[in-house]
């Protein structure tokens, strides 16, 4: 299953016509201990590059941007109870939401794992 990355440190997994979105290991490390996650409503339409969720750490509150355009189909309810999942398992159990893929071509603008690794090393 292909995984893509944005320059705002979101990851997106694509499986058939559903995508799963979260923030990267690098992002959680920079944010520090996460204390609150605000997820989008199921059914909400979100647009590539626009605000989709909010993550709040002891340092700061940050927006999480939609990696692509689509409709939110499911959110990770476990994060509301235990936001520390984003710290302990950012790229697996700490996923944020699932969404439809309105325009598959938008994925072409994102980075693959190697490109993202190189991007982070340059920061």
């Amino acid at each position, binding site marked *: 299953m292909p995984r893509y990355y944005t320059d705002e440190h979101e990851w997106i997994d694509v499986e058939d016509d559903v995508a799963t979105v979260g923030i990267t290991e690098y992002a959680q490390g920079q944010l520090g*201990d996460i*204390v*609150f996650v605000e997820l989008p409503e199921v059914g909400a339409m979100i647009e590539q590059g626009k605000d989709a969720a909010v993550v709040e750490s*002891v*340092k*700061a509150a940050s927006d999480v941007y939609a990696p692509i355009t689509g409709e939110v189909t499911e959110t990770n309810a476990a994060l509301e109870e235990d*936001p*520390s999942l984003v710290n302990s398992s950012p790229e697996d159990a700490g996923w944020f939401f699932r969404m439809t893929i309105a325009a598959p071509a938008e994925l072409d603008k994102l980075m693959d794992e190697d490109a993202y690794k190189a991007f982070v090393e340059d920061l």
Partner: protein
Amino acid sequence: MNAPNKSGWKPEMQIAESGFLGGPVTSTGNRGLMLEEPLLFEIGRADVTGVDLPGIDPQAPTRLGGLARSEAIGLVGLTEPETVRHYTRLSRQNYGIDLGFFPLGSCTMKHNPRLNEKMARLPGFADIHPLQPVSTVQGALEVMNELAHWLITLTGMHGVAMSPKAGAHGELCGMLCIRAALEARGDTRDVVLVPESAHGTNPATAAFAGFRVEDIPATPEGRVDVAALKARLGPDVAAVMITNPNTCGLFERDFREMADAVHAAGGFVYCDGANFNAIVGKVRPGDLGVDAMHINLHKTFSTPHGGGGPGSGPVVLSEALAPFGPMPFTARDGNGVVHLVEEESAAEFGHTEAFGRMTAFHGQMGMFTRALTYILSHGADGLKQVAEDAVLNANYILRSMEDILHAPFGASGPCMHEALFGDKDFTNGLSTLDVAKGLIDEGYHPMTVYFPLVVHGAMLVEPTETESKAAIDQFIAAFRGVVERALEGDEALKQAPYYSPRRRLDETGAARKPKLAFEG
């Protein structure tokens, strides 16, 4: 007096195990005359009270009907000396501007002159009621009117709304004036542009006032990207909100050019005036093309705000916005009498387009009195020197630290009233937070950390004009010492502070699982 701390909230001090500086461990947890302090719930008892109230006649009629309390509430009571001691002890564990240097950036923690306090306590200002007849409070209204005059004069603006209670409240007032002005001309533009170098409250205010917020990037030198701002202007842009001096501690040199471009495109210019301390007496925002700007009396004009309040955020307004300013405000009639202009008298004073009001009453009277005292006791020359000394002190710190501490905008020219640093060169996983905690051990309140967001591990230091060169030199020596430990990767710094009444607190646990009620 010092009952065992049953809540389990103990000082996690190594010295409790090893003794302090090799001395014996005390059975009370106290250290000499520095006393450990239990919670009120742990000291108090349900059958104690500090006041002698007359007994209640059980036959007396009650007017509470079904709302009368049927069982005991279970709150503890304390004697008056217990209460006084509790808060006095807590105050000894606290830190404030009256104890020492308080370099909290973006907060302007300056000395509060005692003359201000003396004036604010005069009974004619302190013991009045907002609903008293105007004829009995002419002195207080005179203070408001004169302060309004000086705020308008110092900023080169046209009018001022005095009632907002703090900075962000003032921002909202200014943005509502802009909204009212747009509505009055039938204009539906609804986008507010906010540069990255603005205060974090700015986008929140614009969104709260019903606008759509868009970011404008900063240049590498830490100022607004003027070209990007101009490129975004258009018929949908209602206003821009620019903080000047900005949160990178820099003066926005191109402000006039930006304001002219915004006006040419039909928009308004909001200026966040929280950092007015750096330019008071030197620059009049009205000359820069500002339409609305809040002034934090509790920063620039030295009214106390150490405990989170009370703030006061009057908003100065341009000629275009002044007609929409909220009520109430003061105005003098031909006979020299100062009036409070309210809804019923608005027409008489020609102020019929006010968008409404921000508060029920007039604003923070105590802050008005203190701020006016500060302005009049400093005079024009003194206020100018305030700005000059605040800027000089910040630059002295910037240039005294930049050889060992990353100063991201050090090459952008002199800073204004605050010096900004980043944690780029720390080793062994040490971060800005560790330096802040290390400074507590050295006896200093930490600077602002992790703000502004544009700098990694930001440390924002604002000395204000309060401090002498000797005090700043002492701080620099302590700050350099802690920074050198962070550069060398001193593992011990990760556990700081060691010598405060409480060790490093579990901020994550407090945010994730806060305990908000006492559990016996």
